[in-house]
């Protein structure tokens, strides 16, 4: 009973600001022209391309965040408590900077006349400026930077639950540091990798500002497209249908993922 009372504000919040708007959006997509907006989107090669681009960028971003974030989280887990505090502050620090400011900083660094190109050309490593901005590379770079704290903190909280005596047990029974890591720590950190991967991927799906500022036309993501349909073309049913489809795709991914995750748990690949 008390639990229900305590839950009520959150449930109300979700209903009022998430479920209701989503329902309205879906209703909107059907209201005027029936299934026509869905047909338009599913048959349009442009929309399919944008969706594929979005998935590609999200996949690269997720992999990049995990690859860069894992060593940091590992270090946070195994280092001395004093050092851990300092490192955690450094990890969280970028959160204090506005998203747009961070994207613009990348533009200053990566642009045709940006810091890096001036150095590279100035020192004679390259004839002309390197194409660093407005491409897949810059979009993924910007997104990884923004999503890295989330990745690291999720991995770190999962790694904290691993009993480090297990690594000692591996070492005393003949495993070098590297093999102890591969055979014990890494498998036990898989739940953390799954959780972080999922969170980062889903967050990346909705990115709008970063691809708009750091990407070219080729890197147009689904959120940008929906924005254009809604605010430039003023075609609300079409925008709603695109939004609803994104929701369906995301939900399907989540379902497949959670199934895979639970399967893994059944096989025993989870820390205590």
């Amino acid at each position, binding site marked *: 009973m008390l639990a229900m009372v305590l839950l009520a504000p959150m449930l109300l919040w979700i209903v009022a600001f998430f479920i209701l708007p989503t329902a309205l959006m879906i209703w909107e997509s059907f209201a005027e022209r029936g299934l026509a907006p869905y047909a338009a989107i599913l048959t349009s090669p442009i929309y399919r391309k944008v969706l594929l681009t979005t998935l590609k960028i999200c996949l690269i971003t997720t992999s990049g965040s995990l690859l860069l974030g894992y060593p940091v989280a590992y270090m946070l887990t195994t280092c001395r408590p004093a050092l851990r505090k300092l490192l955690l502050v450094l990890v969280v620090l970028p959160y204090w900077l506005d998203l747009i400011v961070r994207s613009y900083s990348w533009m200053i660094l990566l642009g045709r006349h940006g810091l890096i190109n001036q150095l590279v050309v100035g020192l004679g490593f390259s004839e002309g400026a390197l194409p660093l901005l407005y491409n897949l590379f810059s979009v993924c770079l910007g997104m990884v930077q923004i999503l890295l704290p989330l990745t690291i903190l999720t991995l770190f909280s999962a790694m904290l639950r691993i*009993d480090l*005596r*297990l690594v*000692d*047990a*591996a*070492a*005393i*029974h*003949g*495993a*070098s*540091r590297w*093999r*102890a890591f591969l*055979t*014990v720590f890494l*498998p*036990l950190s898989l739940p953390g990798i799954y959780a972080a991967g999922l969170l980062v991927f889903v967050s990346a799906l909705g990115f709008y500002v970063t691809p708009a500022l750091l990407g070219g036309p080729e890197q147009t993501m689904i959120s940008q497209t929906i924005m254009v349909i809604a605010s430039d073309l003023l075609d609300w049913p079409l925008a709603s249908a695109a939004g609803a489809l994104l929701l369906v795709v995301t939900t399907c991914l989540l379902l497949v993922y959670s199934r895979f995750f639970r399967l893994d748990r059944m096989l*025993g*690949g*989870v*820390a*205590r």
Partner: protein
Amino acid sequence: MGLAAPGREDRRAAEAGVEVRLDRLTKLFGAITAVDEISLTIPAGSFVTLLGPSGSGKTTTLNLIAGFLTPDGGDISFDGQAVGAVPPHRRNIGMVFQSYALFPHMTVFGNVAYPLRMRERPGRAHLAARVGETLAMVGLSGLEHRYPRQLSGGQQQRVAMARALVSRPRLLLMDEPLGALDKKLRERLQGEIKQLHRQIGSTFVYVTHDQTEALTMSDMVVVMHDSRIVQVGSPRAVYEAPVNAFVADFLGGANLLPGEVLARQHACYAVRIPNGEVVAVPHLGGSLVAGSAVTVFVRPEDIRIGASAASAESQVATPAVIREILYVGEAFRVTAMIGDQPIVVRAHRTEAQQVEIGRTVSVAWPTERSRALDVTT
């Protein structure tokens, strides 16, 4: 527990216990000295227990031997070879951890096979044979495909033993391996561990704060207190001839009566005890002078009370007032007052029936069962 007849390989292993030598070993944690210049030789093939209360440095010592910690001073050597620069995985040690530290993502087979996979490159058949043999040794055959979380505490303990033993290490370290188990199981496993030690012949170093465990299992007990070694000796030596009040008390119920040395005679001190009487306590070469404060030590089971106290010879007998009689199952625990100091007697049923609370009776103990402990050590 099923015991396979020792083959040629087993007998070779039996000769292969390692001698461990600690030389002025020191470990600091910040400002705290966890291990303070301890020196100790652990004979090859022996069963040695580091015994002490928590914080006495025994687990730190074990972790130094394992190589998990780097000493801040002193040396460790195995068979005369310094191992300071050898990482844990090359020390060829087996270890049973306090919470077992079994790999939760591996089956029993995977856990026990782990040291073999890391140390050798065994063929599949060889691996299965060695793991099966070791599991049979600890009585766990048939559970190969279970995960640790599907096992009882006792079974997990045996898996941990099997993992530690499977590669026939010359040194086995055990960090309170029975701490999490109930009393009955603990006693059974004590016997099994002792048996495994006899069978394998490796050097066993066992850490515990349980004095019964230390006394029943060890060839040699190392009593630690405040980061130092207080006494090293056989279980009988540390129990019956403790060097100071701490050891006397830590190894089991000890009566420690404050007294004053009146004279040093040819074999004994004459000591005044709290009821004003003067008793004889062997000096065993001690050099306390008249007037020194001393603690008279005697075990509860060495004291007789009432009528049986009067009979024996070469005894100390002194009056005491009965304060409490407790039934503890196999015996009675009688508390009597010698002056203002309580003395605990472990009394047989017949003895206990002869005494009453409030009565003054005679308590007696054989002189040679008592010790004069210097209060300054």
